[in-house]
């Protein structure tokens, strides 16, 4: 069931289109992440959904009820949403308890019920025993839990999260990702998460929306956007990749042949009919570093087998990061941390056509 429907959302700041024709349906209980570099419009989109920004165009529909059009906008307090901010925005003059109970007091719930619900959300966010503390007596991670509890306690229709973990240190951030996901799964609350960190999005979200310059570049699961990136932007933004520019030389039954600028000939899986460009047209191919095989001894493969030379090597603990020169192209290759090849040595390089990916420009 669709919970939140966003149709053609557009917001301009002066001449700049911060959000450009953004459309997305979010299902009940789904966890969606908006990712993209800073200035891509992800936060503006979220703030339009919250009601802090009035969009120039487009509709937002919550539970089949229109809450935002280009003519009228429902104020944030009537949308029954909750939001967690990067700055925590925990009220410094209220105790943890008072922070969390504020939303319930606004709803004029009886005192006993307020108390029950505050206690429940304290438990959920692992804040038991801290309810009488002031925010300045809490760590950053605890403050962010208070912000989360404060939002969850009102049982919102939608939970909005704006880079909630960016101010935390790396270890805590990783821990909190899993906690967030666990809580969301437990409550099955529809959530939208904005982040510039693609790994965070992958850990947390059911579905990832990659945004660039106000537009949606790709929507999909973590696997989709990583392995089947549809644009140069997505391929380079999500993880590292080898981006090869070339022209289409021939189309076969299951494979097509591509010749790169530097003369390397590569066979690539054909893909869906509609997506295939014309012969002689320019294409980009993305190959992930871990999708390339290198061996010091010869391997038997029908296509895409090359001789190469290792020109650079870095040991990064869980893997080796090599630069390999292959037919005038320099490819980045990542292997298991046990495949220790020496620099300047000759290697055999194999690129699986199935793991190569076409891109729009």
């Amino acid at each position, binding site marked *: 069931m669709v919970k939140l429907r966003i149709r053609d959302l557009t917001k301009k700041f002066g001449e700049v289109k911060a959000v450009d024709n953004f459309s997305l349906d979010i299902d009940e209980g789904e966890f969606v992440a908006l990712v993209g570099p800073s200035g891509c419009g992800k936060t503006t989109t979220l703030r339009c959904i919250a009601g802090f920004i009035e969009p120039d165009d487009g509709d937002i529909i919550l539970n089949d009820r229109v809450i935002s059009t280009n003519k009228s906008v429902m104020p944030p307090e009537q949308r029954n949403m909750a939001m967690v901010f990067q700055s925590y*925005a925990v009220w410094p003059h209220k105790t943890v308890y008072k922070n969390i109970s504020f939303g319930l007091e*606004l709803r004029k719930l009886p005192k006993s019920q307020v108390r029950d619900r505050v206690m429940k959300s304290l438990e959920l966010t692992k804040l038991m025993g801290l309810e009488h503390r002031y925010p300045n007596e809490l760590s950053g991670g605890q403050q962010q839990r208070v912000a989360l509890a404060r*939002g969850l306690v009102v049982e919102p229709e939608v939970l909005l999260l704006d880079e909630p973990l960016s101010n935390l240190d790396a270890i805590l951030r990783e821990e909190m990702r899993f906690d967030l996901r666990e809580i969301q799964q437990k409550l099955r609350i529809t959530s939208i998460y904005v982040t510039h960190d693609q790994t965070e999005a992958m850990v947390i979200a059911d579905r990832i929306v990659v945004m660039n310059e106000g537009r949606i570049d790709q929507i999909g699961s973590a696997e989709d956007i990583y392995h089947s990136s549809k644009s140069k932007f997505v391929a380079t933004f999500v993880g590292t990749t080898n981006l090869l520019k070339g022209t289409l030389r021939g189309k076969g039954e299951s494979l097509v042949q591509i010749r790169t600028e530097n003369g390397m000939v590569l066979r690539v899986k054909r893909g869906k009919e509609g997506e295939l460009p014309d012969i002689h047209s320019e294409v980009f191919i993305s190959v992930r570093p871990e999708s390339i095989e290198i061996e010091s001894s010869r391997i038997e493969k029908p296509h895409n087998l090359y001789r190469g030379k290792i020109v650079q090597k870095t040991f990064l603990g869980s893997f080796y990061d090599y630069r390999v020169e292959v037919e005038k192209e320099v490819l980045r290759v990542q292997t298991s941390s046990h495949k220790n090849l020496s620099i300047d040595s000759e290697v055999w390089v194999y690129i699986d056509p199935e793991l190569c990916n076409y891109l729009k420009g």
Partner: protein
Amino acid sequence: MPREYPKGGLKRIDIVKWVLFPIALIAVVILILFPLIMMFQGSVFTPEGKFGFFYFLNIFKQKVLFKAFRNSMVIGVWATFLSLLTGVPMAWAVSRTDIPLKNFIRNLTMVSMVTPPFLGAIAWIFLLGPGAGKFNVLIREVFHTDITLFNVFSIEGIIFVIAMYVYPFVFINTASVLDNMDSSLEDAANMLGASKWKTALKITLPLVSPAIISGAILSFLEALALFGVPAVLGMSRGIFTLTTQIYQLFHFPPQYQQGAALAVPLVVITGILLMFQYLYLGKKQFVLISGKTTQPTIVKLGKAKWPVLGYCLLVVSLSVMIPYFMLLLISLNKVWGAPLTLSNLTLHNYEFILFHYRLSQKSFLNSFFLAFMAATIAVFLALIVVIYNKRTQNVGRSFLHLVMVLPFAIPGVAMAVAFLWAYIRPPFMLYGTIWILLAAYIARRIPLAYMSCSDGVTQINFELEESARIIGASWFKAILNITVPLLKLSLISGWILIFISSFREISASILLYSTNNEVIAVTIFTLFEEGEFEALSALSILVLFITLVFVAGSRRIVGKGFAQVS
């Protein structure tokens, strides 16, 4: 699952939008802008009611008026010079050297700043009055002569007393930059082989000079705007300044328009200098402070620290300790001038002003009432304007900002002239009532509340309010439950500042009070003119005591609150 929806927020927004905002904005405009416009208007019409600069030209044509103008300038320039001579070395000494008693000197400078200068002037009459001044008498007795060494009733006397109460502007400005300045700038010079004296002169001094100039401007403007000191020390000897001359013009027959024309140069000079300070110096000062907190390098003075300490102690003695001691002494004396023996000590003067003297009782009540009301209303209005300016996108925000800081540029006497001129006839006939004093106090001091509140709001992250709104608080409820409580300290400190300065206000009150609406400063002035020095001293000591209690209290409240909130 059934969900509770937040209930009705819209109606409340409308109350603010259609009731609170308009009332506050109109009040601010009527209080501040209307009198000033009336004053300017009054000054540019001839006696026949035609447009013209008759009254302005008079300033140069009439010897008395021009002399007053010249006296003000002479006093302003010399008092500023003395402020620099005292404020700068003292600031350097307490911020960057190893002299003892640093906090004592800092605190007494703060006391000097909150001391009403006209009380200082009266105290100095007791010491340096030509006839019975204690110090002059002492010299005569010691050297067996008839010479009067010092006469405080003179231009020099006025300059000296004013300097003792305006030097804190230079001191505080300079010290705060020295306290916060990144001392690696100085360390670099030391590394290159400059001696500590050379570093102080060639590196530190140029770096703090914008702050010094800015403090000097404030000292100059305060010296120009003061009424009490030249009134007490000059008027009886025919020495007039712009402020006392304006006061004189309002005696029978009152020459309103000439008074207005004389106030205009005060306003214009103040406006230009403040503009200069804001536009030019304001930018320069920010460059210095890096944001890192570094421990300033302390210069070890060696033997030189004793003369430096002596100099600092001399200044705080002249501005605070000696005058306070003098007032205290006389307030406890049976008769001013009687020898200081135990049998002459009495509390009778306090008893008199507290229980037997109707004028002082009345003016105490009036001043309390006015200061309390002025502080409360000004803080309330300032809060609404700040919310309007910083938390809405409505029109007229920069205009309102200008109106709210404008009174900074209006000396008290000029403000009083404007109020007289504006509120002496319909539609607002306030003259002759206590309300004209209240209106003038609010208008004069509202910038204090506005600035304090505005700085406070700037430090409050928008997201604190947004996080209340998204979980169901209307705009108004978010402001009321989140923003206003977080502003508590700014509001309290604004309130106390206004209370203290209104409680002993003299410059505007002296022109605006009427019978039954006397305030404390006016009563002290009356006692002075009647020669009731013992009662006057007792009243002064009470005023000083109340002022200091409030200052100390505010420091405690603000200090404590900070630990809780931030």
